[in-house]
């Protein structure tokens, strides 16, 4: 087939153009802004490195580190909780496979804001958990670290993003050819050895994609930590959103956002190298 130049362009150019105009150019605008400054409530276009110097201060480095830490908790927890579910759905059920998969996805269709608020009702001093534990006499005083803590933020983020990890993992696990497993059995590998030496390596691409689907939005989370984090859980997303939504410090906010992007791209490059998932190459 020898298509005309016009045909090729119409297939390739329109979508690319959209991404260039509404994604690449905005990102470049942000790069530009990050070297500007604000004076007398106006953005002034002269070149300065002050914004980046400011990020080097202990305050922002500290917040970046805690954001990374919480995002790692969320990712690891999602993987540990979600992997058995994906495995079960992919390899152990037949009849209700579809129903179960839909059940995993269904919570995503409720506003995540509402779900975050619901966690307050569950984890609060007079919430479901504390009241039940007190009713059965396991505790006498309500447990206060359930809400307004790193714990609350982590649990809520796991709840919100774990389904995005289960889906790709499920897809990869389901594709593993049963004959490979049979072969591993026949070679005398036990259940655990078969899992560790065959299934786990084969599912690495799913793990990598799934973990990124949790890690990336966690790094940018700001609503959930603000609502559930209490006094100690400030994350970088809040500070970035503050520069745009509250402080009109677009230049400084842009610089923070670009540093965050740098961290995310580095993480993505790393994990995609060690688990090369299909489709994201």
């Amino acid at each position, binding site marked *: 087939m020898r298509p005309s130049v016009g045909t090729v362009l119409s297939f390739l150019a329109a979508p690319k153009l959209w991404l260039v105009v509404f994604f690449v150019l905005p990102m470049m605008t942000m790069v530009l802004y990050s070297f500007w400054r604000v004076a*007398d*409530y*106006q953005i002034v276009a002269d070149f300065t490195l002050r914004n980046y110097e400011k990020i080097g201060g202990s*305050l922002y480095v*500290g*917040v970046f580190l*805690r954001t990374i830490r919480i995002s790692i908790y969320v990712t690891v927890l999602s993987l540990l909780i979600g992997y058995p579910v994906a495995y079960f759905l992919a390899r152990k059920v037949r009849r209700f496979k*579809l129903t179960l*998969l*839909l059940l995993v*996805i269904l919570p995503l269709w409720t506003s995540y804001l509402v779900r975050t608020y619901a966690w*307050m009702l569950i984890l*609060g*001093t*007079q*919430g479901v958990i504390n009241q039940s534990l007190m009713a059965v006499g396991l505790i006498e005083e309500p447990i*206060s670290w359930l*809400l*307004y803590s790193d714990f609350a933020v982590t649990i809520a983020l796991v709840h919100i993003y774990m389904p995005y990890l289960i*889906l*790709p993992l*499920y*897809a*990869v696990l*389901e*594709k593993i050819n049963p004959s490979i497993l049979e072969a591993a059995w026949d070679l005398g590998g036990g259940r655990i050895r078969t899992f560790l030496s065959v299934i786990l390596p084969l599912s690495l691409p799913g793990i990598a994609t799934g973990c990124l689907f949790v890690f990336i939005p966690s790094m940018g989370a700001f609503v959930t930590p*603000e*609502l559930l*984090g*209490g*006094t*100690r859980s*400030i994350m970088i997303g809040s*500070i970035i959103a*503050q520069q*745009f*939504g*509250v*402080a*009109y*410090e677009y230049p400084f906010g842009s610089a923070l956002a670009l540093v965050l992007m740098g961290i995310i791209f580095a993480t993505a490059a790393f994990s995609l190298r060690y688990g090369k998932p*299909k*489709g994201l190459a």
Partner: protein
Amino acid sequence: MSRETMNLLLPSGMSRRGLMRLMAASGLLAAAPASLRQAFAQDKSLNYFTWSSWGAPEFVADAKKKLGIDLKPTFYSSSDEMMAKLRGGGTRLYDMIVPVQNYIEPAAKAGLIEPLDPAALTNKKDIFQQFAESPQWRVDGKLYGIPFVWGANAIAYNRKETGEVDSLDALFDPKYKGRIALRDEPEDTLAIAALKLGIKAPYSMGEKELQEVKKLLISQKPLVRAYWKNVADVQNMLASGEVVVAWSFLAVIAPLRRAGVDVGWVWPKEGAIGWNESITPVKGTSKLKLVEEYANFTLSPEYGEFMARNTRYAPASKAAIARLEPELVKDLGIDINNVGRLVFKDIPKDKSRWNEIWNEVKAA
């Protein structure tokens, strides 16, 4: 995500033609709102960027009934959010806002607001003089608003748990460890920490005093349950018993009492943070006359009475207060004779430094 995963989610049977028709229709719809807005530019509607209290359905209905004006409210929950939205293109969207006194100068200097014609505000005669003549509402001799409402952010407390409270000490009392809430807003929180330290003019603090304030707030952190962002959050915390004493807006009191929580409200003796608010036109509005009409209406005794009964906020109009029974006036949580106790919000000398100090407290 692979094809297999996605295929599981498909309903079958959607036709190609159906899809095309849907696409065409939605393209038309997407373009509609913008053109509709222009078509209605000459009607009696006002795009009202405001605090949730002033855009509540009963106020919208009242404006329609009494003036024939359609209020189209959009809400903000802090002054900074208002400023950020206006600078981010909001001047092309809104006709009027309800700023707090200390934002008039920056908003005027940044070219975000429009002055009012004093002659249009005939109801000004009923407004308490300290608000009507306040220099904070005037920039370069031009008038940017006459306040219709005033009040203070102060302490709300759960009477059953704390008894009567009269001092900022309650917010720093280890007795209430883990049951205290403060506002996630440097303008309030740094200022009350300064008042607690005996600094008389919080908004002109220097770096040395800011450092002391920061130290005090960091040492207080273990006592604090959460810093609240929206008034709903502090209301929920007081309702659920999550906290027993909180720095708060007056707006939480009435709903909490309705729900059976015995909450008290006090201007602490060290001082409370005073504010007043006015209708102010947004720069470039095509409906200045209509905004002035509405602004004057908010200064009327009828509006003041309506507002006090519905929200428990205090009218700045003497004539409005005269219409209220003494019991209700007590409920407004104001004391015009004690205005001296209020520190009226002002622009901090170095605003971004204040934000930074507050972030340092939160990150500590």
